[in-house]
């Protein structure tokens, strides 16, 4: 690993170009159902199988725009650094970023865009096209890009096969829509049907990355920019539901080597969430509630939520202070990112933001947060 600036940004987003799926999926087999950019009344928008993608947006490159609140109407307004790897490397240099862990945009920040597709062939083709493209266009362009694969949601055999295929091609993490039950009639994540998915991540030693969001609603506000700001603030705390879910369902408990990355989580809500969950585990009696899994009965949880967190979970900060939380979560369980090129990215004031947020942190803890934890997670 080659560090010039001392920062591995663990949550950035690629922008998928208009021809990503049209150039890779069989027109004969899938016809008009292939994800693509269409123009209606002079306005570009993504469609998939007759449905809108991205809530009607073309791209999310706010940080690269002069006016972060501007609404794009045509693809040619999208800044190249959003979708051209060589251009992205330039702005990474400008922001002092050594490595960048990649999440999708059109395919869903949490890899959820294809999760509702009932046609397993179309779903798999869309997923594989993204995974192949990311290796061929981004990972091949520079080792500074850390690719992570997306997965077909169901059946688990398909997800497991795709994870194996993608990791063999060079993917280093698995982007998984944290609440699959929201997309299709599939079993609860705590059920045995999902075991093979968690097990393959453990076996291949790739983190399971649960990105905040999955759905954005439009809150009431006087202007578009203010509505977006409200959504921005609320989005990361949706991860609180995910943290609870993977602990409560005992997926974390049963898979001690499975590592969970809560991407775009921020840090500062996590303390009350874990303190309260741990407190409530006791007063509600969850801690000692017997449970049965795959025919075997257990006495209760063997660990509290905060213990599970410190064993195998990672929060991802990018604008809030680290020092007040470093002891509670453990500095070895905090990652740092820039969230490029989203409107809420710290770029180009990446370093200034780091100085403000990592103030009062010891040298070793600072290194852990900025690059060491990521280097170990992604085997750099």
């Amino acid at each position, binding site marked *: 690993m080659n560090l010039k600036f001392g920062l591995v940004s663990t949550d950035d987003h690629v922008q998928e170009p208009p021809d990503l799926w049209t150039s890779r999926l069989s027109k004969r087999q899938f016809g008009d159902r292939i994800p693509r950019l269409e123009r209606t009344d002079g306005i570009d928008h993504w469609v998939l199988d007759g449905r809108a993608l991205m809530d009607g947006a073309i791209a999310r490159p706010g*940080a690269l725009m002069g006016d*972060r*609140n501007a609404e794009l109407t045509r693809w040619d307004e999208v800044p190249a650094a959003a979708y051209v790897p060589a251009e992205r490397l330039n702005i990474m240099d400008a922001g002092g970023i050594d490595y960048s862990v990649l999440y999708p945009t059109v395919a869903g920040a949490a890899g959820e865009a294809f999760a509702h597709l009932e046609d397993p062939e179309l779903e798999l083709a869309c997923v594989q096209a993204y995974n192949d493209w990311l290796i061929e266009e981004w990972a091949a362009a520079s080792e500074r890009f850390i690719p992570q694969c997306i997965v077909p949601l169901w059946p688990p055999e398909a997800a497991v096969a795709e994870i194996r295929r993608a990791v063999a091609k060079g993917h280093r993490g698995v982007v998984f829509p944290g*609440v699959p*039950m*929201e997309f299709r009639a599939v079993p*609860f*994540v*705590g059920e045995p049907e999902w075991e093979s998915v968690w097990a393959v991540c453990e076996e291949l030693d790739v983190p399971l990355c649960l990105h905040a969001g999955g*759905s*954005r*609603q439009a*809150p*009431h*506000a*006087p*202007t578009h*920019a*203010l*509505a*977006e*700001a*409200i*959504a*921005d*603030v*609320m*989005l*990361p*705390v*949706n991860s*609180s*539901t995910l943290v*609870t*879910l993977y602990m*409560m*369902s005992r997926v974390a408990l049963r898979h001690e080597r499975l590592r969970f990355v809560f991407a775009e989580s*921020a840090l*500062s*809500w996590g*303390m*009350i*969430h874990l*303190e*309260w*969950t741990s*407190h*409530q*585990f006791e007063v*509600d*009696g*969850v801690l000692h*509630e017997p449970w049965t899994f795959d025919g075997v009965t257990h006495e209760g949880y063997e660990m509290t939520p905060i213990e599970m967190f410190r064993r195998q979970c990672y929060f991802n900060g990018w*604008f*809030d*202070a680290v020092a*007040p939380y470093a002891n*509670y979560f453990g500095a070895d369980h905090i990652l740092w990112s820039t969230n490029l090129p989203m*409107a*809420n990215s710290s770029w180009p004031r990446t370093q200034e933001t780091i100085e403000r947020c990592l103030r009062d942190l010891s040298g070793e803890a600072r290194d852990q947060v900025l690059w060491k934890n990521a280097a170990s997670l992604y085997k750099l």
Partner: protein
Amino acid sequence: MEIKFGLISTDSHVAHDRTDFTSRMSAQKWGDRIPHIVEQERDGELVEIWAINGKPGRATERDLCNCPAFMGEPFPRYPKRWEEVPRLAYDPQERLKALDIDGVDAEVLFPNTGAPGMTFHQYGDPDFELDTVRAYNDTLSEWFRVSDRYWALAVVPMLQDPSTAAREVERAVEGGHRGVSLGSAPRGLPAITETYWDPVWEVCQQLGVPVHFHAGGGFGEGWGRTATWSNWSGYTTRQDHTSFTAGCGVGPARTIPHLIFSGLTERFPRVKFVFAENGISGFNYAIAACDHAWETRHLWTEGIKTRPSETIRRQMFGSFWFEDEGIKTRHDIGIDNIMWESDLPHISAFYPRSWEVIERILTGVPDAERRKLLYETALRVYQVKADGPAPAALP
């Protein structure tokens, strides 16, 4: 009022006497639509439960009287029939004993489940709503007449013209209420932050009474939360309760951006907001995230002139009761923005050992800060003057 213990709870829950509504509403006009207690079968057992608008409510164990803290061992238990409901819960004279036992000078009273005060609009009848709301507020004025240690919150009729709602707030405050409890606006009406509701905000600002959002009250909470989460079949009842309850810690993160970025706090810079049962360290996120959005999106150009962290420190207050870790961040949140709550008589309350937990949590916190956290800030927020000397030694 006299401060004897040096402790004020800014989130406790009233429980109703079974006659609170029947004695205050016209039987001729409303008949059996008046909130009253009826018998119902639950799991093969005859239990009692509140009926409102002629129909029994949800037949959950919490819905006759949610008061496990008063029920003793084994814990937690809920009364099934009226004769099991402890007088401590619903008789204001009796409940003073509970405050003395727990070492609490005064408590802010929110509605309870069962006859929940804030949801009378759900029956869609503006006149029925107004009369039940008035009966609720009048009941609480009666508590205030029993003792100034009860700080009641007025509930607001939502289906009337907002100026009628504002008059009801005024009437309640004249009757001794010290704040207002709000939730989401009913479906079909403008959001609570829109100018439609300005008469209500105006009267709260003018009277200086704080507006409260209690966890679970709905405002902002549904936004962005996965739609079906409470229906996940994978959770047991206990897991579901833990998941829902602990999820309230991020409540301020969902509510505060609405209050600020809707322009409401720009229009009403002197309205005080109190967040109940949300804990405190979630404010750190709301402060950091709202400032970050304001800075990166240049929201001063969109009419939000004040930096969100300044607005939050000027107008918003939270309360702690179990956070060993959260209290360490009190200066990040703002030492003048934090109060204490008991959540009496709910499952989360530490009653009757509130002080024991407070001593544990506040270990090492200087006395001047302790006083602010435990009662001084509450006196200021609720505009109450303490008579006599400050408590010399804390129990």
